């Protein structure tokens, strides 16, 4: 019934091949049709597979499709296999669904760009790789998808390759995540050599039966996997690449750096939850990294001037909530937040994209303003997403998932209380930074003229509003907004009706949260406190906005603390001095290869010796005779003395 699931990732990959080989000769319409169409078809296939999966669940709650044996050497034999279970079903629906909407949006958004087919080729390759990542039944195949999405991220961050700054950002993203990837790879070596398999199911079974909880081996493996996860998901201490990744086009940020790729780390930990359960210290570390990330990134978001960097830090902060959830064992809660975050964060990025395009690629929010009147449709869409991000009604998406995570944190011991408190502080900060952004960009008076068909053929489209910009950009925004409003119904908290469809579904693949019976009053109180924190953020944001208007007017040099937060807490500065500069220095200083100097030295020595000996062959018999005599005397002396 499900043996055709291979075509879910194969369709985008086929789209990539078509565009890579013939893309240059396609007209734009054909490129768009292939680029978006392949993802659309993949979405249809994913939906069909999910429907079949839900109607007649396979035995054991998972279906495995072995394509072929990848490698077989001396007992090490990973296969290319896909696994369809509740977790991967949810992931493929998000990846293809949100992916399709973003592709549709891009057909219009990128219409004026050079390299239209190159863009869609990269995007299709990305979706194909991401689908392999989430469908892989084997960690080695997962790693293939994992590296594939990293490559696409690099290519798309540097899509506008003529600007060296974009190239630098792209390179940084690839290298920093690659450090995490190597950690993940070492984890795979360790698993392969100790458990003899890389099959995810077998790993869980064998590890649970062979390893003690908290044993060194379990801790080492979990820590190495965590290294990979923090790289991909831009968490401390490998988070520095994400803000710079905003150099890519906005749809790229929406798809890769918000909805899908950066959540791969969360997916990985949820997927290998058995290993993290065996390593309590590492699981605690996951929670600490998440809780710290919520605030570290949230405070940085508060100070950014670039609209996309605000959203990038926001993504890091929201991923922090997911890590926090994983840290307390709320596997399904983390995935639920991953889903709702994909809705509202991609909507925020796509909305920001409309604004950026309308203002001729202006990214500085202090140059924006008054967009609510210029683009009312975009404004409302952005506002809905902002409400979802801050978990405020009438949206349900962010509320249901974030509330779940905070409630579970509250109930999971003393560390959980600390996580809850940090998460709550994060709720307040989130509200402040996003409404600061909303006020600055959409309220007040325009500070930059809105482009009215000024630049090229597509200017007329981009210049006005998302809705007028045409269906291609408007419809994705509207659908995502609808998902933000209704997404919470996937699993409403039980005091509000309790519709845990998604959670129950995920529990067929992930261990259920151990949730003690909570009094209704506690649940209400927790929700009210968190809502209050969100609501409180709005007036504070207004004050910040009022102040920022004055500050921006005098273009004052920001205070040291603001600069510190703007620069992402000095991590870039530190890493630059700790790693980048020493490496470059070492490499440059030795450009001519010191080892080569040694071999040249040997050559020089022979030249010197040959010159010395040449001097002895001067043709004078007297010299030769003296030499002979001296030699004979030496030999005689040696014989006598020894």
């Amino acid at each position, binding site marked *: 019934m499900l043996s055709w699931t291979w075509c879910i990732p194969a369709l985008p990959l086929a789209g990539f091949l078509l565009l*890579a080989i013939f893309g*240059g000769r396609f007209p734009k319409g054909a490129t768009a049709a292939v680029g978006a169409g392949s993802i659309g078809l993949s979405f249809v296939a994913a939906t069909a597979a999910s429907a079949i999966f839900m109607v007649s669940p396979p035995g054991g709650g998972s279906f495995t499709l072995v394509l*072929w*044996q*990848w*490698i*077989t*050497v*001396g*007992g*090490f034999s990973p296969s*290319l296999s896909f696994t369809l279970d509740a977790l991967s079903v949810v992931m493929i629906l998000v990846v293809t669904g949100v992916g399709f909407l973003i592709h549709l949006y891009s057909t219009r958004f990128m219409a004026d760009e050079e390299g239209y087919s*190159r863009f869609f080729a990269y995007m299709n390759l990305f979706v194909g790789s991401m689908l392999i990542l989430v469908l892989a039944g084997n960690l*080695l195949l997962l*790693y*293939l998808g994992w*590296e*594939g999405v990293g*490559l696409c991220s*690099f*290519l798309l961050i*540097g899509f506008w*390759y*003529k*600007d*060296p700054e974009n*190239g630098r950002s*792209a*390179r940084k993203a*690839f*290298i920093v995540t*690659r*450090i995490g990837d*190597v950690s993940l*790879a*070492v984890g*795979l*070596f*360790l698993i*392969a*050599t100790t458990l003899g398999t890389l099959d995810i199911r077998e790993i869980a079974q064998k590890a649970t039966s062979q390893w003690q909880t908290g044993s060194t081996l379990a801790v080492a493996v979990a820590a190495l996997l965590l290294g990979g996860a923090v790289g991909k998901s831009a968490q401390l201490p490998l988070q520095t690449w994400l803000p710079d990744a905003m150099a890519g086009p906005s749809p790229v940020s929406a798809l890769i750096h918000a909805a899908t790729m950066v959540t791969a780390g969360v997916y990985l930990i949820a997927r290998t939850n058995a290993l993290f359960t065996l390593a309590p210290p590492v699981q605690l570390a996951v929670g600490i990294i998440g809780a710290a990330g919520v605030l570290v990134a949230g405070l940085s978001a508060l100070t950014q001037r670039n609209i996309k960097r605000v959203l990038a830090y926001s993504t890091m902060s929201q991923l922090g909530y997911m890590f926090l959830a994983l840290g307390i064992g709320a596997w399904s809660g983390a995935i639920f937040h991953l889903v709702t975050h994909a809705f509202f964060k991609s909507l925020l990025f796509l909305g920001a994209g409309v604004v950026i395009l309308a203002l001729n690629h202006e990214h500085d929010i202090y140059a924006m303003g008054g967009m609510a009147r210029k683009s009312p449709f975009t404004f409302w869409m952005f506002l809905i997403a902002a409400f979802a991000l801050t978990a405020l009604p009438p949206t349900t998406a962010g509320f249901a998932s974030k509330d779940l995570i905070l409630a579970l944190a509250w109930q999971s011991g003393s560390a959980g209380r600390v996580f809850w408190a940090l998460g709550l502080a994060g709720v307040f900060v989130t509200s402040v930074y996003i409404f600061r952004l909303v006020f600055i960009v959409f309220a007040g008076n325009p500070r930059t003229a809105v482009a009215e068909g000024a630049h090229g053929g597509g200017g007329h489209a981009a210049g006005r509003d998302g809705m007028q910009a045409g269906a291609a950009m408007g419809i994705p925004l509207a659908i995502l907004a609808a998902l933000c409003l209704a997404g919470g119904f996937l699993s409403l908290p039980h005091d509000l009706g309790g519709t845990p469809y998604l959670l129950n579904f995920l529990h067929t693949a992930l261990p259920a949260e151990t949730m003690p019976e909570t009094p209704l009053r506690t649940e209400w109180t927790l929700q009210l406190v968190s809502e209050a924190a969100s609501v409180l953020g709005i007036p504070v944001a207004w004050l910040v906005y009022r102040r920022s208007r004055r500050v921006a007017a005098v273009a004052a040099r920001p205070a040291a603390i603001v600069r510190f937060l703007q620069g992402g807490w000095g991590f870039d500065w530190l890493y630059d001095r700790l790693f980048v500069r020493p*490496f*470059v220095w*070492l*490499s*440059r200083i*030795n*450009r001519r*290869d010191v*080892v*080569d100097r*040694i*071999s040249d030295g040997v050559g020089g020595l022979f030249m010197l010796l040959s010159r010395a000996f040449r001097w002895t062959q001067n043709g004078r018999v007297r010299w030769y005779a003296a030499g002979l005599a001296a030699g004979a005397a030496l030999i005689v002396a040696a014989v006598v003395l020894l």
Partner: protein
Amino acid sequence: MMAVAGGGILLALFIFVPLVLGLAGWVLGRRQAGFSRWLTLAANLFNLCLAAVLWLGAAGATHFPGLAAPGAGSPWLAELHVPWIPGLGVSFSLGLDGLSLTMLGLTALLGAMAVLSAWTGITKRVAFFYFNISLVLAGINGVFLATDLFLFVFFWELMLVPMYFLIDIWGHENRHKAAVKFFLFTQVGGLLMLVAIIALAVLHSMATGAWTFALRDLMGTVVSPVIGMLLMLGFFAAFAVKLPAFPLHTWLPDAHTEAPTAGSVILAGLLLKTGGYGLIRFAVPLFPAASRAFAPVAIGLAVAGIVYGGIMAYSQKDMKRVVAYTSVSHLGFVLLGIYAFTPQALSGAVLQMVSHGISTGALFVLVGALQDRIHTRDLDRMGGLWAQVPRMGAAALVLCMALVGLPGLVNFVSEFLVLVGTWQVSPVATILAGLGLVIATVYALRLFQTAFHGVPRETWTLADLSARETGTLFLAIALLVLFGLYPMPILHMVEQSVSGVLAVIAAGGGA
């Protein structure tokens, strides 16, 4: 003795077809240069077909007369023995196993690629150029087939001289110095090996009273641990120079940089592989005990090469020098895989020779194509080339990802196998080598971005890849992807050779 006549004669064809056609091309090509090109290409295509046919036979896909069935007791699929100098026990002995066949297939493939890359670029003494190409390829095939150590040395030297000419006559600015350096390094290593071979034969004849240079007979020679170590080091010196292993690598950047494109393709793709092949075929099986004792040192050198080569590659300004240092880094994985003595690592090492051969060979074709157009290899003068030559840029991107070891390309499979196999022996070495993967990302991205991204630093007007160049590179890339997703044909083919070597090591006997 003529064992398995049918298959055995075919082995000689691998050597004599390029030799004869190369000679014919030289003679005929004096009047019409095209002859030499076509005949050299024909020789390589013939060898490629021959390898493919033997491959199918060896894999059991077709019945092939004269080919031993795999697993029939003998390690060889086919053998040829013709007495040469009976008094010294020297014979013209060739033997084919999965490892040889893999390397012969690679030689024919890269040989054809090299000829195609030189198709229009060589204008000086064309016929003699292709004769040298044929001669060096014949020598390489001989090295991959010889099972008599005397014959092996003969072929070992045979590869050297034409390569010297290729660099010295058709090379770039500093070709003379690079050619001499190449010659001296290789020759010193070769001399040490020759001494070791003669000593081993003498010791064997003293013990048994019979002269022989046959690998099979010499393998059982009993020598003291100290002598065994010394002799092993003689072999290791020759192979480590060729590989090249750190710190004996310094001839390579010069030779690579100065050689003509076809020379670089053969040098990187094939000549370096004779070092790895020699270690697997001779150094380790002849001296298992000494090799075991030496393994920690070899692993240390391998890791040092991986990291050092990577760091060096980052700062080079000459595009060919960058690629040369990446070779130092990637061949470190071969050395690492050989001396870890685990099935995964050794299979990975062999696969790494294939993947590095194809990817770096293709990379040199690409760099050569670029140099033909803009007459410089200086990265500081490039930039933003993508806009003009997107096809070349796309090929460069894939090949740089091969340097990075991106999964989906065969380079990933081989490096992963080496590392997973080494982990069982030395986690520390594995982690340090893993660091090399990060460094690989750094230099590969720099190489790609400096040339193809950013703003053009000088105004070049250049044409994108021609049909011939596109075809060559497309073939290479297709193979990298094909074997990246399905490396089993190669892994199966070398399985028996690998387990044979490991059995000798595990038996614990010998020196």
